[in-house]
């Protein structure tokens, strides 16, 4: 057997003392105990760090491995006995490496990239060493080595469901290309400017690339390079290739895989080369290879790997060496043809000189992400994601939603907010201290713009109130939007928006004052149930559902600035904003794809971190117009009235109506009805509402709803067979109520439940 030389034999081999490290000695012990291994000798190998030039001595245990578990004449070419060097090197990265010393050890999948003249190195672990070391023992390491040999020999190391192994090893550098690189790659007037992102002094890893006109001088330290984007014919699954040193080596690699790049290169070069020629320059060329990859046995492209090589020569030189271009003796320009000058042989395209063009540097290619990429990575479907939306209110919650949706590639948004970022806002806002003083709308649009490279995120900031109908840009934004999300944490904005037919489908999201709960109200697609209707139904749920008792508690905190029940200028950590923001963002994104309206709320159990969920069934709204007022209730409440009447028949019954007035909208929202107090008097002809416990009930109603919902009128039922028309007695009652209500400047509401019908009357003192 012929073995590669690797390191120097230790003088005292095989004495364990000649190993430098305790770890190596433990590995040696394990080797000696393993019956499938025989220790040949101990060596030292010097590794040179390419960057620093420092030399590190490494222990190497040379072993012969035979466990006999794979066929002796396997096609892969792993011999039943293989000589390996097991090295231990302290420091960063994987300390334990395994090198195959037999000359002619096959190129297989799952080998590590090695420096020139090093033996092949087995890629044993898929995870990082920091993960591996938690379960690593020398014995398991040796089993892993035997496993690698066995699985590789049997051709089963790479499972069918594993992703294809990449064609090239990862390069030391990567270039981030513009997202529209592929489309623009055929543009002859452009060159790429490469700008390295320096960490310290001259160290860098990432180079950012941007298109500029070819005749434009590079800015600052940027490097101007030519570029060629070449798509090669598909390549099957293979071991990872070493980066080539010349274009000739590159072509050989592709030929071995039944592919070729030179044809594609020729075509691209001719396509891209300007008709009026170029002056040769001392510049390099970035060759971007798109390599379609096939899984073995298939002819379907599974993925396309994009790799880059920085070539030492410019595009004219490459063309000349490929015999594609010809240099004019008159002006030194290099042309595709001889049309512009005489007495020169036309290029024949048959030169082989291109094979010697040196590769200066292999470069990993990353393409700047687009919104499609973001969607794919986030599991967001493309369908329904390209729409214009308006996000009203980009405070703490709104700014979080804006950022989440931007990064998910969902929608293209206009942010409307008239507020300016204050120092204390930064605690719970995506804006930074440097943004203090700017409009939140602009802070957020700038912020999400930075999520992508230039020109991808189209979000716009519009300083102003969402309800400001005088501002044409706001009006336009609202009227062209497909979805409006209200995160203003106000009562008025959603109500006002709901009242207008020009408003798109809308949602309102907010956190409760404690920050423990969040709420989402979402209109149906047809807007038959609007935010204002949903709001009233939400309050009814607060009054009746178990979760409502403390839902809005904390409303009277010490830091009240605004005073609305959804005010978030309270003691709420950014954790809660992020937590509920994420829930709301995701829920709204998925639910807005559906037809129906939603009322949902999430409560945090702070001791466990669990979020519990409650859904309020949405009822169809019922609206009556009386005396210029819209009186709003819904089928759910209607059913409750009917049931209550039924329960007391043949007697009448009744109680107090709960709800609120909106003077601006001239609307009365009936939220709920209290049942007859125990001291009420009811018979088959009439009903007198008592008062026992009523005060407490109204107090509780105010407490639960942050003083939004209160007394708005009275209701009673009529006996069997009776309509809901007011009796003379009822008219008197209404007059009485109207007189009282006028103290508050409000009309009085009376609701009568008759046989299969409900009648509402409004009394106002003129």
């Amino acid at each position: 057997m012929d073995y590669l030389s690797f390191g120097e034999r230790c003088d005292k081999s095989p004495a364990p003392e000649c190993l430098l490290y305790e770890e190596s000695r433990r590995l040696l012990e394990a080797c000696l105990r393993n019956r499938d291994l025989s220790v040949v000798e101990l060596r030292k190998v010097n590794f040179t760090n390419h960057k620093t030039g420092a030399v590190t001595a490494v222990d190497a245990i040379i072993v012969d491995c035979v466990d006999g578990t794979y066929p002796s004449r396997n096609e892969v070419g792993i011999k039943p006995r293989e000589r390996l060097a097991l090295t231990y090197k302290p420091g960063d990265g994987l300390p334990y490496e395994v090198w195959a010393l037999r000359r002619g050890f096959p190129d297989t999948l799952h080998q590590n990239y090695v420096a020139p003249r090093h033996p092949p190195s087995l890629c044993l672990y898929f995870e990082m060493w920091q993960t591996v070391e938690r379960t690593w023992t020398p014995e398991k390491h040796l089993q892993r080595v035997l496993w690698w040999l066995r699985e590789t020999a049997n051709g089963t190391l790479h499972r069918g469901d594993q992703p294809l192994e990449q064609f090239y090893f990862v390069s030391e550098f990567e270039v981030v290309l513009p997202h529209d690189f592929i489309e623009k790659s055929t543009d002859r007037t452009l060159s790429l400017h490469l700008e390295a992102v320096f960490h310290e002094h001259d160290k860098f890893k990432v180079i950012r690339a941007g298109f500029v006109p070819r005749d434009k001088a590079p800015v600052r330290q940027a490097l101007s390079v030519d570029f060629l984007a070449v798509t090669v014919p598909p390549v099957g699954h293979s071991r990872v290739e070493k980066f080539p040193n010349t274009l000739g080596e590159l072509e050989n690699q592709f030929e071995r895989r039944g592919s070729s790049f030179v044809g594609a290169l020729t075509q691209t070069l001719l396509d891209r080369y300007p008709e009026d020629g170029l002056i040769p320059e001392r510049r390099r060329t970035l060759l971007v290879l798109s390599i379609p990859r096939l899984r073995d046995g298939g002819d379907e492209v599974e993925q396309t790997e994009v790799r880059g090589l920085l070539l030492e020569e410019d595009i004219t030189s490459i063309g000349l060496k490929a015999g594609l271009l010809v240099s004019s003796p008159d002006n030194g320009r290099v042309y595709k043809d001889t049309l512009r000058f005489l007495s020169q042989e036309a290029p024949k395209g048959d030169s082989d000189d291109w094979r010697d063009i040196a590769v200066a540097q292999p470069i990993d290619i990353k393409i700047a992400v687009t919104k499609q990429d973001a969607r794919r990575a986030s599991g967001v479907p493309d369908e329904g994601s390209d729409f214009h939306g308006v996000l009203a209110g980009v405070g703490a919650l709104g700014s979080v939603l804006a950022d989440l949706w931007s990064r998910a590639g969902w929608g293209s948004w206009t942010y409307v907010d008239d507020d300016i970022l204050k120092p204390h806002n930064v605690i719970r806002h995506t804006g930074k201290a440097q943004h203090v003083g700017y409009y939140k709308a602009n802070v957020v649009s700038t912020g999400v713009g930075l999520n992508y490279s230039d020109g991808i995120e189209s979000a716009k900031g519009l300083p102003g109130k969402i309800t400001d109908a005088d501002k044409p840009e706001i009006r336009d934004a609202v009227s062209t939007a497909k979805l409006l999300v209200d995160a203003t944490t106000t009562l008025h904005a959603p109500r006002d928006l709901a009242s207008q037919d020009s408003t798109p489908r809308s949602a309102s999201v907010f956190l409760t004052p404690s920050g423990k709960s969040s709420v989402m109200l979402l209109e149906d697609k047809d807007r038959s149930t609007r935010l204002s209707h949903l709001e009233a139904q939400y309050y009814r749920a607060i009054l009746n559902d178990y979760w409502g008792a403390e839902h809005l508690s904390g409303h009277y905190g010490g830091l009240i600035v605004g005073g609305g029940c959804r005010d978030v200028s309270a003691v709420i950590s950014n954790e809660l904003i992020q937590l509920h923001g994420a829930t709301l963002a995701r829920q709204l994104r998925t639910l807005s794809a559906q037809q129906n309206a939603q009322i949902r709320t999430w409560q945090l159990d702070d001791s466990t971190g669990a979020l519990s969920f409650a859904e309020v069934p949405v009822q169809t709204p019922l609206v009556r117009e009386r005396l210029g007022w819209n009186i709003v209730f819904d089928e759910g409440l209607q059913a409750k009235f009917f049931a209550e009447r039924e329960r007391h028949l043949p007697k009448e019954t009744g109680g107090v109506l709960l709800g609120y007035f909106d003077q601006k909208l001239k609307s009365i929202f009936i939220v709920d009805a209290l049942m007859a107090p125990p001291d009420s008097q009811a018979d088959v002809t009439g009903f007198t509402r008592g008062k026992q416990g009523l005060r407490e009930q109204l107090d509780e109603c105010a407490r639960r709803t942050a003083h939004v919902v209160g007394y708005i009128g009275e209701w009673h039922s009529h006996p069997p067979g009776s309509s809901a028309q007011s009796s003379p007695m009822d008219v008197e009652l209404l007059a009485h109520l109207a007189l009282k209500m006028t103290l508050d400047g409000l009309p009085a509401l009376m609701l009568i439940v008759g046989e299969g019908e409900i009648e509402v009357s409004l009394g106002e003192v003129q």
Partner: protein
Amino acid sequence: MHQVIFYPVGNGDTSQIILENGKRILFDFRHKKKTEEGEGPEINLKDRLKAELKAAGKTSFDVVAFTHCDKDHIENSVEFFELEHAEKYKGNGRIKIDTLWVPAAVILETAPNCDQSEEYVIWRQEARHRLKQGKGIRVFSKPKMLKDWLEKNGLTVESRKHLITDAGDLAPEFTLEADGVEFFCHSPFIKHVDDHDEFRNEASLIFNVRFRSGGSEFDYLAVGDSSWSILEDIVRTTKFHGKDDRLAWDLYNIPHHCSYLALSDDKGEQETIPKPLVEELLRKGKEGAYLVSSSWPILDTKEGREQTQPPHIQAQKCYETYLDQVGGARFLVTMEEPNANKPEPIIFKVESSGISLDKKVLSAAAIITSTPAPRAG
């Protein structure tokens, strides 16, 4: 896929070839009585073979070959197999032998009386019976003494020719085409049967077993007990007949429990130096080849180096030296695999992609949990 199985029976021999078509050829039989009481470390061969046959749905071996009739190759066999020459050896779950293979010496009274164990005599009776019946037997080589014996028993050579195979010929029971295997007889050959009646080992069966699987062929050198001089004769004769390929091996069942005497007459201090033609045979090993020593574990200690009885560590080192030179895989000892405490049969798989060991790779936990744990106090 064909299989070649070596059973751990101490310093003794039992191996089996199981062909892809299900046919089974057993070489030698050594069963230790103590293993019936659960004593080891040798395997309880009877139980093992019966279980294997049962699993395969068979009640007989296609061939049982006794390479020679030393005790360590036939021990307790007459109570395991069904013998046709006497009623008392029939039935009762005994395992049938479709065809019995023996060297001519077994038919003849060539061994000194003191070596003629009771079992040896019984097998001679059986072989003679089958030969007289003219079926269920193959005799290898036909020395003059065999012809004499046939005539004495009123038979002609002509009438029994189809039951006799000479060295240099193939046993007709199997062909590469039909069975994926052929047995080329190296030994015994006339010279030795006639000249050295007292050395039964030298008259033992030696085959080149050639397997075919897919497009690949593999050579297994199956040697019963033998000595260096016999091997040199074989190499010389085989080369003389231009059949060098029959000397090559992917698998070599090394003779006589790794005795140095199969290499040379001089054990050597650290490593035996093989005689020139034996060395030539060792160099015929192919890349990735295996060596199997059917023996006790081989000790690389002072005691091991000095012990008279095989296995001899000096011999092992010699074999390993040449195995290394030919790029071979591994030297295995039947009583060491997978460990010396509870050895298990070594099973080679022979398939087109090569030879490999059929062994389970188990984690420590899997091993511990595969048996009851020791009693806790």
